């Protein structure tokens, strides 16, 4: 094996494959399974202050070339979810607490609790494309976003990651703004706004009508976002979007990502996808005479 270790801010990862937020991370058991399947880090589902049921079904469907979902940020609330994180206390794999809120005060409360429950970093979900008041509304308001990040940075000592959306125009500006507010890394990308209409009934299939598009089809969109940020802003990047194979991950590293997150590929290849991808990365590195990942990061623009 080549050395698959990577670093994002203060976090050391034994391998660069992280579980993406919102997938197989409802409880300690599922997260433990993903760890056993080789994930190098776990991002929890996005957690808010209070319990939310999310939208009615259909919440997830598979399209021709990707997955479409509108879960509506279901979660049991930070206090209940805290127990799931605490139960992971003994794991050596970094646990990153994803949180969402509509304002800085709530974000700070959530971040403090996440740190208290044992999370090794927090990931701010300011990019959910289908949850009103949360998500994109927050991520596209530059001054609000700056306020949220700075407030959190003043209150906790674990790293703060910000997950952004491909649905914004001025991506590089937003990334610079995030960097200026002292965030420790950017996670790109969240899902792309999308919709599927059933022809027989004439109805959008998702109960929420619009949803977020993920999986294989969105990889070229994620790659360009990571590349554009990496080239213009000096901040670690975690790449997400359509990563299904080791080669997909390598494309993200070359674009400038220091680690990757994997979501929809669990549907395509099962939970063992983490092991598979690590093996494929290792094979590729060896075939191409690389000794470690670091040599690869940003190869496309350096």
């Amino acid at each position, binding site marked *: 094996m080549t050395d698959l270790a990577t670093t994002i801010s203060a976090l050391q990862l034994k391998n660069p494959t992280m579980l993406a937020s919102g997938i197989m991370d409802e409880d300690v058991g599922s*997260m433990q399974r993903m760890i056993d399947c080789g994930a190098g880090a776990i991002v929890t589902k996005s957690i808010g202050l209070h319990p939310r049921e999310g939208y009615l079904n259909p919440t997830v469907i598979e399209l021709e070339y990707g997955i479409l979902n509108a879960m509506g940020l279901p979660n049991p609330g930070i206090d209940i979810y805290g127990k799931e994180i605490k139960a992971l206390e003994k794991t050596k794999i970094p646990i990153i607490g994803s949180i969402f809120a509509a304002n800085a005060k709530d974000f700070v409360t959530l971040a403090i609790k996440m740190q208290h429950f044992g999370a090794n970093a927090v990931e701010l979900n300011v990019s959910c494309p289908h949850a009103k008041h949360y998500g994109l509304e927050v991520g596209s308001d530059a001054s609000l976003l700056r306020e949220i990040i700075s407030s959190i940075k003043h209150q906790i000592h674990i790293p703060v990651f910000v997950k952004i959306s491909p649905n914004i125009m001025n991506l590089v500006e937003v990334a610079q703004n995030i960097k200026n507010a002292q965030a420790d890394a950017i996670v790109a990308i969240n899902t792309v706004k999308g919709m599927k209409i059933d022809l*027989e009934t004439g*109805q959008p*299939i998702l109960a929420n009508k619009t949803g977020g598009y993920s999986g294989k089809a969105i990889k070229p969109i994620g790659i360009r976002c990571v590349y554009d940020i990496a080239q213009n802003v000096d901040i670690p990047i975690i790449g997400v979007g359509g990563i299904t194979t080791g080669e997909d991950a390598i494309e993200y590293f070359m674009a400038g990502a220091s680690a990757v997150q994997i979501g929809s590929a669990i*549907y395509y290849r099962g939970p063992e996808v983490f092991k598979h991808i690590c093996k494929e990365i290792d094979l590729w590195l060896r075939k191409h005479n690389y000794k470690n990942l670091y040599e690869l990061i940003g190869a496309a623009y350096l």
Partner: protein
Amino acid sequence: MNIPTITSIVTSFNEASDIKTITFTYPGDVSPGQFFMVWIPGVDEIPMSVSFATKTMKGITFRNVGDATLALYQLKKGDKIGIRGPYGNGFSLKGKHLLFVGGGTGIAMLALAIEQARKKKLKATVIIGAKTKNQLFFEGRMRQCGATVLVSTDDGSTGYKGYASELAKHVLKEKHIDAIYTCGPEQMMKTLLLYCKTIPFQASLERYMKCALGLCGQCCIGKGLRVCLDGPVFDGTVLKKIKDFGVYHRDASGRKILF
């Protein structure tokens, strides 16, 4: 693509008080124990075991317990629903004399397995448990396929008075049973698992489901076992290690709900 296929109701039939079977055109093979995601446009999408299957037609049998099942209950011939699936693993039938224990609507998801066992010339003893007489269904259908059918009701309005699991305990004492298959209230199934000791045991679980694709994690039990994909049928050996089994499930927000 894994999206609902629209089909229309061909028959709608009252099985018992508040319980109906609807059938619809939906071609393809199904393993007994698998389920569909049933989309009622504008209402909800819910998991439903396949209770009836021919090459071209399929059916589901359900109790009217809430918005979605009420909507299904009111559908008439020609009305449209969306079906995706079948999903899940289904039962694996092993041995010569099999005991099936269905509690409540559980018999709906066992029916195809029982008929399959009979087609394979296996001996099938079936216990159908219900709260009361007018909630019993599939008794005739199960007899027709050649199974030995025993009935229990909580109130003794017909058959054995008491839980289906208690009746099963008696059967286990009297007959040599090679394997047990069950679906019903989880505490009943848990009790049954205690009774069956070394006899191979498979139980079908119900958990709140969203994707049914093994992706969202909503339906997980134990160490990330996805009821929608790794289940809904689990072996007794697996269930014994899962502390959730018979203790709690989770609602749509992920909160634990004790049974």
